């Protein structure tokens, strides 16, 4: 419960938010360059795949039609340029469209975004005492950060303690899990909220949402590959009674071929996603320490932030989430929503606690 801290309170947060926003924009530019390189890698890989495959087809064709021992190397220069162009344009277009579409979805306002992940809004004056306390805590932290109150949402389906903040169409919002609402003490909830507000103030919330959009573009390639792999099931599904006529057998054969092609596409897509996640992980880890420190500065209570981290550490599930957003919104969460050994979005809990223990 209460602990009197006799040492001087920590220095106030760097209140020059303009500098913070400028720095955030510079970081965003650097990250964008890295992401663009990932996209380039994927496009080049796809081009190589398409070109090689086309060359193989041509060579095979030539061999079959009486010009034996034609090597791929002979065929390559004869390939029409259009193949390369089509492959590059197609891949780039797919990535761009998927990315833009996701960004549009994310910019429709906090209510829409929250609903899309299944979070429920918390009323201004809730009946439920736990929610009222949450509301009060959010207003307190909004005061401490010198800003306006946020919209608050609860993820009822999540029993782990976690949360994140973001802004959509200039509407800042905060999401906490049901687990957090039910189990956290007042000061721990304050720490969680302060962390989210800190992310908003430091420009990280905005950047993280941008990353979600960019990553969606690169993920699209892998998704297309996966669909290609699954194409036989689409063919088989449309028909229903088990009888496979000759035409459908033909289409089935074609779809198996598509599956084969799709494996490579999915592999390229997956590697692209790994690269992009690597870039994302690099970006987010340091910012977590900063957000922790900002939370301490707003609450003036390092003990609360530490207690919150310790409590999550002590639970077996940690902050692990169930919903599909746990991967996409990974860096935005207070603690990782997915247990993983590499490409971590956050520093280990132990390290974060240790940093807060320093005087």
């Amino acid at each position, binding site marked *: *419960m209460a602990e009197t801290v006799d040492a001087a309170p920590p220095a106030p947060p760097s209140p020059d938010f303009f500098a913070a926003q400028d720095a955030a924009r510079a970081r965003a530019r650097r990250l964008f360059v890295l992401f663009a390189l990932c996209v380039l890698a994927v496009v080049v890989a796809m081009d190589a795949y398409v070109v090689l495959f086309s060359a193989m087809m041509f060579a095979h064709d030539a061999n079959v039609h009486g010009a034996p021992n034609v090597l791929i190397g002979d065929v390559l220069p004869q390939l029409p340029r259009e193949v390369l162009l089509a492959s590059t344009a197609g891949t780039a277009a797919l990535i761009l469209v998927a990315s833009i579409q996701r960004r549009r979805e994310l910019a429709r306002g906090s209510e829409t975004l929250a609903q899309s992940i299944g979070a429920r809004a918390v009323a201004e004056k809730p009946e439920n005492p736990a929610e009222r306390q949450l509301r*009060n805590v959010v207003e307190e932290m909004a005061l401490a*950060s010198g800003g306006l109150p946020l919209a608050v949402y609860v993820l009822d389906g999540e029993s782990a303690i976690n949360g994140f903040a973001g802004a959509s169409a200039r509407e800042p919002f905060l999401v906490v899990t049901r687990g957090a609402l039910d189990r956290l003490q007042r*000061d721990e909830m304050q720490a969680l909220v302060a962390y989210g507000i800190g992310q908003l103030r430091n420009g990280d919330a905005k950047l993280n949402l941008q990353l979600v959009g960019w990553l969606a573009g690169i993920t699209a390639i892998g998704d297309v590959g996966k669909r290609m792999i699954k194409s036989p099931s689409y063919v088989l599904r449309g028909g229903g009674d088990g009888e496979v006529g000759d035409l459908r057998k033909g289409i089935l054969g074609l779809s198996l071929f598509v599956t084969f092609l799709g494996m490579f596409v999915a592999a390229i897509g997956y590697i692209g996603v790994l690269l992009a996640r690597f870039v994302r992980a690099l970006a987010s880890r340091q910012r977590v320490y900063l957000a922790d420190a900002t939370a301490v500065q707003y609450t003036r209570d390092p*003990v609360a932030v530490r207690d919150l981290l310790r409590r999550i550490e002590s639970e077996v599930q940690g902050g692990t989430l169930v919903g599909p957003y746990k991967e996409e919104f990974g860096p935005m969460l207070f603690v990782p929503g997915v247990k993983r050994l590499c490409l971590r979005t956050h520093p280990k809990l132990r390290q974060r606690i240790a940093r807060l223990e320093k005087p």
Partner: protein
Amino acid sequence: MAQLTWIGILIVAGIALVGWAIGGYNAFVRLRNRFQNAFSQIDVQLKRRFDLIPNLVEATKAYLTHERETLTAVISARAAAVGASERLAANPGGSAELKTLAAEDATLTGALRRLLAVVESYPNLKADQTVASLTEELTATENKVSFARQAYNDAVLTYNTKVQQFPDNILASIFRFDAAPSFATESAEERKAVRVSFG
């Protein structure tokens, strides 16, 4: 030719100086607006708290017949704080009035803390729904007052640092931007108030 170069240098230097002055002035205004806004927030929260206290006193009076002094302390501290707040409203920016308000605020916070601790120690009082929700509201309001104060002090600190540091202090004295008073209280008890969680 050399004369033209000198004139050129002077003009560039002049423009740079004016640019610095404009930037500095805007920064002072921006930072001053920020702490003035923060101050009005404190006012809002103080009023909320003043309004909430009579309800809490009413709800707990029946149970706390043996704790008359605690309740009386709260009521009188509130009256004093309201008075100090009104005096400050009549003379905005007055540092003496601000100091008085800060002191009365500290007294009131102390009295409220004692009342909340008493409520905590009477189980049937704690269990009462009305009291429970009022206690949460009061804790929240105490915290809000404290955080509003904190935000104000932070904003004042930034402003004062800008106004007092060289070379901006030259600009500040030209444009007549003075250091602002902080809503500080030396009482350690005050600082404790925020950390106690009754949840």
